[in-house]
């Protein structure tokens, strides 16, 4: 029954997951650019964000269409609403990658690097990347446990962010080093935001499955309010 | 709110009126039923003694002990046969024309329609005169033969056939016609393949009812000259004939003793045939009623 509707709905979901895949690619590239101070790669990341924005608009229009034309209910409706939120978070994640990419050239070609800071940042990036992959898997398999596990992942990312901050404070006395270090704290913040967005996606997955919207408890704040459907 | 207040009881006057009405209706049924039963009983008492197989198979004679109904029965059979052959095509064709082709707004079609209704009420003796003037004598000049009798009786009952056939055709829902036309059928194909096949039970009922009227008609037959004393069955559409009602009439008119019982027996036969025909018509109607 309603074959076309089922197909359209599945297509929307595939579209969103494709967008998540794009973000994973962007995160990989941005980590790479960070490690090797590769400014060309950074520009590619900035240009590549157009694809994610395009996908966002496509999905947005597709969801409007689906709501207007097919009137989904029950779990289908929750899925559609969740996809709308999820794709927004994906778009934000893409923007964070762009922010990171934009921060790299600001330090100039001979950046006064502190390797220990870069090392922590790369690790943050990798953790953030794994969070994105995990939230995609949670969505694909509707796995609430997997979604909830993102919180502990995210705690690690937050801890690393504080580490970067601490290291940046002790970075050095000269102006250029301090400037570079401040930019790196912004990079850390961007990675942390990527992680937060992944946790938000996890919350949406839980909503689709359970019908309850609950903020997962994370390390940055206590347990949030539970909103019943 | 108490039960009585929630649904108020009917007022006493209404209840009494209702009951009185029911009794009135019941009594009318009882009276008419009683009359019919008395009639039948009277005839039965007189006639059953004369009923026998010999009665049905012998020719009439001056001796009431050996007189029989055979030529009259055969005459009636021939008459009815000819009648059916006449009324079915003419009646159905007229009904089809009036229902399917005639534009109801045209004056001549309205005229035809009104006339059909009127003709159904014309007294049978008028048809007898008509038959005498135009079929037995006049333009057709067939003489007082079976064919003339069939045609006259046919004209008499034709309006009944037309009216019932029209009802049967009208009962076919327009959705069936629409469906057929939407598939590319012409109007004629729709009528021939959808409307008429579905109307057959209704038309058959109408024909049987028409025949059961024709079978008992005496006046027209007398006028067109069905013979009084005929000792043979008809040999063809062009032979002289008599019919059961005629025979009964003659026997009743006979003043000599013994013929009254014969007449009663004849009436019993006629009634049995009528009952059978009407029964078949009712069965047909009930079987196919509400098929839509």
């Amino acid at each position: 029954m309603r074959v076309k509707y089922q197909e359209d709905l599945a297509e929307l979901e595939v579209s969103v997951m494709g967008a998540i895949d794009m973000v994973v690619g962007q995160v990989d590239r941005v980590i790479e650019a960070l490690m090797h101070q590769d400014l060309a790669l950074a520009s590619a990341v900035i240009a590549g964000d157009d694809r994610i924005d395009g996908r966002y608009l496509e999905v947005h229009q597709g969801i409007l269409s689906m709501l207007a034309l097919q009137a989904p209910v029950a779990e289908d409706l929750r899925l559609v609403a969740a996809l709308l939120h999820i794709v927004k978070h994906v778009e934000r994640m893409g923007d964070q990658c762009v922010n990171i990419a934009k921060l790299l050239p600001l330090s100039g070609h001979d950046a006064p690097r502190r390797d220990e800071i870069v090392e922590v940042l790369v690790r943050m990036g990798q953790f953030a990347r794994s969070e994105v992959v995990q939230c995609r898997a949670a969505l694909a398999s509707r796995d609430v446990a997997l979604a909830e596990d993102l919180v502990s992942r995210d705690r690690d990312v937050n801890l690393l962010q504080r580490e970067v901050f601490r290291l940046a404070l002790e970075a050095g006395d000269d102006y250029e080093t301090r400037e570079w270090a401040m930019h790196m704290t912004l990079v850390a913040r961007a990675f942390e935001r990527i992680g937060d967005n992944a946790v938000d996606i996890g919350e949406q997955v839980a909503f689709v499955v359970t019908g309850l919207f609950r903020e997962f408890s994370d390390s940055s704040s206590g347990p949030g309010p539970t909103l019943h459907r | 709110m108490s039960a009585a207040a929630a649904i108020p009881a009917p007022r006493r006057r209404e209840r009494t009126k209702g009951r009185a009405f029911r009794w009135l209706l019941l009594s009318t049924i009882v009276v008419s039923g009683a009359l019919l039963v008395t009639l039948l009983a009277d005839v039965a008492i007189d006639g059953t003694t004369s009923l026998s197989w010999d009665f049905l198979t012998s020719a009439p004679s001056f001796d009431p002990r050996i007189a029989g109904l055979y030529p009259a029965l055969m005459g009636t059979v021939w008459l009815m046969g000819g009648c059916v052959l006449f009324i079915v095509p003419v009646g159905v064709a007229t009904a089809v024309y009036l229902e399917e082709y005639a534009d109801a707004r045209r004056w001549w079609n309205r005229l035809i329609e009104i006339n059909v209704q009127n003709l159904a009420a014309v007294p049978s003796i008028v048809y007898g005169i008509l038959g005498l003037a135009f079929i037995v004598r006049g333009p057709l000049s067939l003489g007082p033969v079976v064919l003339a009798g069939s045609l006259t009786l046919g004209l008499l009952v034709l309006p009944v056939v037309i009216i019932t056939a029209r009802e049967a055709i009208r009962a076919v829902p327009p959705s069936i016609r629409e469906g057929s036309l939407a598939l590319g059928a012409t109007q004629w194909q729709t009528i021939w393949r959808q409307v008429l096949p579905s109307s057959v039970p209704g038309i058959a009922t109408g024909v049987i009812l028409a025949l059961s009227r024709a079978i008992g008609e005496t006046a027209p037959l007398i006028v067109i000259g069905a013979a009084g004393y005929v000792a043979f069955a008809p040999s063809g559409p062009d032979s002289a004939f008599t019919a059961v009602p005629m025979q009964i009439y003659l026997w009743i008119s006979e003043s000599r003793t013994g013929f009254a019982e014969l007449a009663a027996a004849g009436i019993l036969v006629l009634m049995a045939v009528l009952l059978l025909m009407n029964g078949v018509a009712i069965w047909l109607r009930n079987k196919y009623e509400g098929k839509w």
Partner: protein
Amino acid sequence: MTSSVIAARDVETRETPLEAVFSLDNVQVCYGDVPAVAGVSFELYKNEITAFIGPSGCGKSTLIRCLNRMTDLIPSASISGSLRYHGIDLYGPGVDPVQVRKRIGMVFQKPNPFPKSIYDNVAFGPRVLGMEGDMDEIVERSLRKAALWDEVRDRLRSNAFGMSGGQQQRLCIARALAIEPDVILMDEPASALDPISTAAIEDLMLELVSQYSIVIVTHNMQQAARVSNRTAFFNVDLDGGRRVGRLVEYADTETIFTNPSDPRTKEYVTGKFG
């Protein structure tokens, strides 16, 4: 979001150009002197499902019946304006309505199977039209296309009235398909059916559209939203005291239901009247 300008919707590019099946130009239908629907000009395209929606009395049923000359059956009906089918004037002299109905089939609101067997129902059209070919094959093919074959293959000779409403309607569709039309018109085909049968008919429409062009009249907006590619919204115009049906907006379905341009369309689809 980056600052680059991205269109809200990619412009849809069709693989093949649109081919008009019907072209209407200022079509007006009157019953006697009273116009039922007037000033209708638009085109209906091949291999699409076009829906006619609108409040009761807006003339959508009248208009769809013009497309296969079923209005000819109503003596007082008259049509003016130009109504072309693949370029041919449908009401021109020398155009045989019977041939028109062979090419443009119709399914009605209340399922109307003939009081015959399932086999004879489907075979009726081909028989009266004198179509050549193995009748058994034609019947089977049509029943398969209407997604009914598996359910009735063992009782083709049984009476059509023994089927459920949804099955009867699919039988009527099979009957219409048997004459190998080009276009299928459906006048509220599912309004007499329960939701499951309705969904089955809608799925069937979506399957058939690759081979046929379909026009559907429906008073159920959600149905139009679910199945149609393009939607025409008709409304009753109080034209100087007279109620006349007019075409208000005609666009692809997504636009009609997400962003209609005419305020009357907006009010109708959001349920504020009608």
